[in-house]
């Protein structure tokens, strides 16, 4: 860390803003670890274009204001690119600054709208809701043979975006949800929403929520004896959520997500997972895996494209990249991951029951 001023000036700087404190740190810390791991690996292999890569890490906490302050702080050091948080509310707050500064910004958000705002500097590495929620809805209709969908969603940009895509997908099949119930991210009692869905005659529940509220929904669904198949959002596959639900709560639940490092049979993924666990003493989830891929792809862009912001952007736009979690190819909106999988949990053990892949050829 004690580099000489000359060497420090020579380093390739990358900003990293993630939620390192607050309840949002569930995912933020795992992602930061993945970013640090990718950078350290590249540095150990000689850096990018022979220069050491330096990460400028700042905490975005659970507040837009804090996240924006953190972004401004890292931008003060003129980084070549920024690894941003996945929270869409924070991203939307950061967008004007990102556009003004013209800095390539990468993150793993799922919220559909984020890449529809025409921000030419932003790249997305998680399949957006248009992919995952369509997959979840198609799965409920075609594979589970259900027609009466009850939606549970968190009352924010992420939840509403998920709800809209479920409704659109149902519409294409000539259907409408029988109920769509929202809750606040901090709510502790979901029984009223669950009972409303049940009373509306739903034969399947599709939910879009964060880890802690998803855990409450699954727990309370079981407690209320509401025996309906449940297709939950990617939050339900995260280790942090798995720790707070019981086997019974999760048994039989379907989950849409982008990848599951823990059950990926490929040796390179298992090797990566083991080295992550050894180093950080915690297990990595899909968000950590994709964040690692994203960071590696960015470092590759600096190596191959050049240490200059607009060249990094055009490299990211044009290049197809084989990562551990997916094959990344960015479309015109800069959506770079197009793969969704549906898992089924037996106790806390997931198996992949269906893969939906629409990566551009």
């Amino acid at each position, binding site marked *: 860390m004690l580099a000489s001023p000359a060497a420090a000036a020579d380093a390739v700087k990358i900003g990293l803003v993630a939620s390192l404190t607050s309840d949002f740190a569930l995912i933020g810390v795992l992602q930061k670890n993945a970013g640090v791991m990718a950078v350290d690996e590249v540095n150990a292999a000689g850096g990018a274009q022979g220069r050491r890569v330096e990460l400028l890490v700042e905490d975005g906490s659970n507040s837009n204001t804090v996240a924006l302050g953190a972004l401004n702080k890292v931008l003060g050091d003129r980084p070549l690119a920024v690894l941003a948080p996945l929270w869409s509310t924070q991203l939307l707050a950061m967008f004007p600054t990102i556009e003004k500064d013209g800095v390539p910004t990468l993150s793993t958000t799922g919220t559909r709208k984020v890449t529809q705002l025409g921000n030419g500097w932003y790249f997305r590495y998680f399949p957006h809701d248009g992919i995952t929620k369509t997959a979840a809805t198609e799965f409920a209709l075609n594979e589970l043979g259900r027609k009466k969908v009850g939606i549970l969603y968190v009352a924010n940009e992420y939840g509403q975006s998920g709800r809209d895509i479920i409704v659109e997908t149902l519409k294409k099949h000539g259907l409408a949800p029988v109920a769509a119930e929202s809750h606040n991210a901090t709510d502790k*009692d979901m029984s009223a929403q669950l009972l409303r869905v049940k009373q509306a005659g739903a034969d399947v529940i599709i939910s879009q929520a964060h880890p*802690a509220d998803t855990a409450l929904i699954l727990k309370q669904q079981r407690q209320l*004896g509401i025996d309906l198949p449940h297709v939950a959002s990617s939050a339900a596959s995260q280790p942090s959520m798995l720790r707070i639900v019981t086997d019974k709560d999760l048994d039989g639940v379907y989950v849409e997500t982008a990848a599951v490092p823990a059950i990926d049979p490929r040796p390179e993924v298992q090797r990566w997972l083991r080295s992550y666990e050894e180093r950080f003493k915690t297990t990595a989830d899909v968000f950590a895996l994709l964040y690692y891929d994203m960071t590696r792809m960015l470092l590759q862009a600096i190596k191959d494209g050049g240490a200059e912001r607009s060249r990094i952007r055009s490299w990211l736009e044009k290049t197809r990249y084989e990562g551990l979690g997916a094959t990344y190819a960015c479309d015109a909106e800069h959506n770079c991951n197009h793969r969704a999988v549906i898992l089924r949990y037996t106790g806390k053990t997931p198996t992949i029951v269906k893969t939906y892949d629409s990566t551009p050829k």
Partner: protein
Amino acid sequence: MPQLLLNGIAIGCIYALVSCGFVWVYQSVGAVNFAHGELVMVGAYLGVTASVLLGWPPAVSLVVAVGAGALLGLVFQRVAYRPVRGRPALSFIVVSIGMSILLRNGALAVWGPDPVAPPDLVGGRMLRVGDSVLSAHHLLIIVVTALVFLMQALFFAGTRLGRRLRATAEDQETAQLMGVNVRAMIAWTFTLSAALAALAGVLVAPVIFVSPDLGLFIILKAFIAIVIGGFGSIAGTLVGGVFLGVIEVLTAAYVSSAYKDVVAFALLVVVLLVLPHGFFGERIGERA
């Protein structure tokens, strides 16, 4: 419907337990303790530590957490209240806000940001009544709350210590003239109030999980319950808490889940307009 009512009453009972301890301190020292929610949160974490990390049986964990919570209350009184005693109420309010931040960030440092879920105290049992499935843990919350309120009524009316505490709450100077050790009584109030907060924390933890922000959520709701019930009234905390819990659940079920909190706060405004004293209490502003 029975499920909804049970859930509403159970969460309302938690609001009531939290409010009750809060009101004791308010009556005793004439100022609100903004760190009371954090005492609930720390109590919940103490329960989690005993039951999950140390693997103790739920009943033992409960007793240990309440005991440790009481001790924390005593220390809190010594550190946060005693140094500003005799100064305007505002001094203690500011100190309590500081303590709330300190405890929340302390919990974040000690237990981390991930929510944790302790096992419930009755082994996750569910009771089937007709079409409804009722959670035994929710019933336990209601029974424990009823017992606590009954015991505290007997304690304040029928014991020497209870009467001294009441005298101190009523008028510190007169109590002192009558030979009551006011300092000791205030220490007792903080201790008992924190024990009750820890009890609420341990009871609510399996239902809503424990995270460092638990205190903020709970104190906001408890505050509404206190105002609805009547600021300063112990009976009011029970009625206000249960009333709020039930209204929240019924609003989410029959009006709109999105407007649950809007209705809760609108209700607060309506109660303040129609019944400025709440259901039972004294007019806000008469003390603080």
